């Protein structure tokens, strides 16, 4: 009996971590390029609703994913335009995106009342029934939807892209010394746009996985529950490294899964406190680890092409 709880907790850990991993991968590239995309919380929220709506109307999960990618790219482009070209304050821009997203999703969701009562198609489980029935392993791993698997492979791909490709080198260089990149004959603005759009796409996909990964419905107001902000913290804790950030995301996912289970067990602790647990862990991790990590030198600062 008690083992079952642990298994289901591990299973939920993987499931809850998946959206965080996706969002984190994009945010790492954006922040490495020097732009803190604080709007990922809002973009995630929009992605969550977009996934549900597209899946509902098209009855096709692939269409839902493509629509989400398009929406994420557009929102990323908007953030890039504001923070890179217009050099707006990145914190204020992020807050604005998040507030707009909260309002817009609430409004649109209210207008799409028919989706409320219906569960839509979710990401499929790719492993056969027989494998899912394998004790322990089946329960924890093989009954995960494909989105979870992709999310767990993605940090490794991100690490390769960041450290082994030319584009990854450009992104790393831009965040640390944009003038050096400009004098090397590259376009700083272009690289920053690419990185921020990348963060928009992955944030939207993360939101989509949040809704279509398992539950198949959208909850108005607080669907994402600050997960975008948690990812931002995880990126800092992980020192802007894909794999270390992934570990931070998984720890948060585990804490989130644990608190849900503790709530279900009818503990004496009021559930509000249990809900705080993952966030508390994040804060503690941040205070402990932030010192040792290397911050991109122009993190959060506007790049003025005329300053040399």
């Amino acid at each position: 009996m008690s083992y079952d709880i642990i298994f289901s907790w591990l299973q939920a850990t993987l499931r809850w971590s998946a959206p965080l991993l996706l969002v984190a991968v994009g945010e790492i590239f954006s922040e490495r390029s020097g732009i803190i995309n604080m709007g990922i919380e809002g973009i995630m929220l929009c992605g969550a609703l977009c996934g549900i709506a597209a899946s509902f109307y098209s009855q096709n999960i692939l269409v839902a994913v493509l629509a989400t990618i398009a929406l994420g790219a557009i929102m990323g482009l908007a953030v890039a335009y504001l923070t890179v070209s217009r050099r707006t304050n990145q914190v204020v821009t992020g807050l604005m995106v998040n507030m707009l997203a909260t309002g817009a999703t609430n409004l649109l969701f209210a207008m799409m009342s028919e989706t409320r009562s219906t569960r839509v198609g979710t990401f499929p489980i790719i492993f056969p029934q027989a494998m899912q029935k394998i004790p322990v392993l089946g329960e924890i791993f093989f009954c995960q939807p494909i989105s979870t698997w992709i999310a767990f492979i993605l940090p490794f791909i991100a690490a390769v892209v960041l450290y082994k490709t030319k584009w990854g080198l450009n992104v790393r260089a831009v965040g640390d010394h944009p003038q050096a990149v400009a004098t090397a004959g590259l376009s700083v603005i272009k690289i920053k746009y690419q990185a921020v759009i990348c963060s928009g796409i992955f944030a939207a996909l993360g939101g989509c996985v949040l809704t279509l990964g398992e539950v198949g419905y959208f909850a108005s107001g607080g669907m994402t529950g600050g997960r975008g902000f948690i990812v931002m913290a995880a990126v800092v804790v992980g020192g802007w490294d894909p794999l270390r950030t992934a570990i931070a995301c998984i720890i948060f996912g585990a804490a989130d899964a644990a608190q849900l289970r503790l709530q279900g067990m009818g503990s004496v602790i009021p559930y509000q406190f249990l809900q705080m647990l993952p966030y508390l862990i994040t804060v503690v991790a941040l205070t402990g680890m932030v010192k040792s990590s290397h911050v991109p030198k122009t993190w959060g600062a506007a790049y003025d092409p005329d300053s040399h």
Partner: protein
Amino acid sequence: MEEPKFALQMTDITKRFPGVLANDRISLDCKKGEVLGLLGENGAGKTTLMNVLYGMHQPDSGKILINEKEVEITSPSKAIELGIGMVHQHFKLVETLTVLENIVLGIPSNKVFLDLEPIRRRLLELCQEYELYVDPDAEVWKLPVGQQQWVEILKALYRNAQVLVLDEPTAVLTPSESDQLCRAIRRLTSEGRSIIFISHKLREVVEITDRVTIIRDGKLVGTIPTSEATQAKLAHMMVGRPVSIDRRSRPALQQKKPVLVMKDVNALDERGIQALKNFNLTVHAGEIVGVAGVDGNGQKELAECISGLKKPVSGTISVNDTLITDVVADPKFIGFIPEDRQKTGLVMDFSVAENLIIKEYDKEPYAEKRLLNLQNIKEHAQDMIKKYGIKTPTDTVKVSTLSGGNQQKVIIARELDSEPILDIACHPTRGLDMGAVAGVHDVLMKERERGAAVLFVSAELQEILALSDRIIVLFRGEIMGEVDGDTADAFTIGQLMLGQALEEKT
């Protein structure tokens, strides 16, 4: 077809910024295999001219010819394509990346993945060829600043630069590294490459260049063959009036009254490594003690300990028999001109007037009943601007808009106007042009006459020799030797800087 004679010709380049005419019809040319010196004070327009050449600015008018063909340089990548390489005064290296990664950054290729092996081989060849050795896999921030310079040069050579612009390359080099650079420059010119050597150190310009182009206030003063140039002549052309930073005659010290007394001081640097070892030093009233040495041998910690920014691990430091821990905040005791005027000396975003009272903003007459007295602050600022000749439009402009020399004057006014009994001047002339350097020397000599004890830290041997009554040479946190200012010579001090103790004089 005949081989073109000129690698680069810039004709009548004019570049206007809002409110300033940075380059006013400047022309220069550089033959193949020639070292052209570009000489001018800070703000004369050297950097703007070179940024035009490198495609970072577009000229308002004028022509640029490469290999005697007119070109339009619209971006740095275009400049690189045309064979122009530039080593900026402030390095354009990504410090967290390795040397190899910095070299490969921006090199066009069709590959998605980085292929560092061929680049590593080519880089090592270049290192050999020009005797500029660096470890390709070292992260740049771990390299000493001289080697970072090599990386910049190698980066340009890797891109096969035919015209290489070196902007103040020797400002960060030790004497032996400067020699190494000279050898590399000779090698480059023997291959037919051209060098534009920007500097305001006259000695080097005279040593290394073939011709010198001098600009002042955005205008061309003239171009002369180096064989016809003397340091005095160049200085005159650059500043527009005769200047000199030679040693001046001075009255002998009347009596020896110790002001700064350091006894057995030990201190650590930021990394926790011992920076001062059992350090003993006495500076008397009315004398200038020059502190020579290669940077990073304890000069910074010495100044920080005396100014109270750093606590020594052991030992005592006193000024006029009072422990410095009790007097640090008292402007009557210590005037401190810090090493980095922009980071520690000034609040760059504050106005000139605000920076002038930053030490005493909470005391009368600047503050009354916890409110700032703006009228008094303004009057004080205007007094100081007049007295110290600070060139600024008003006292309310941000200090960051002033030139380096005038920023330094703001610090000098703030630190020395209270007539402290001890002055600590750390690299007070670093990055300043000749006119401003001479101005700082005037100030320090006047402080000496006034009877202040002056500790003068500098990496410029020529200046140490010009100013000091006594010279101490630091090596690895210890005083390697002490020489009398009147009889000192550069060779002896150079030996001491490298850690070779003086032979006992018999």
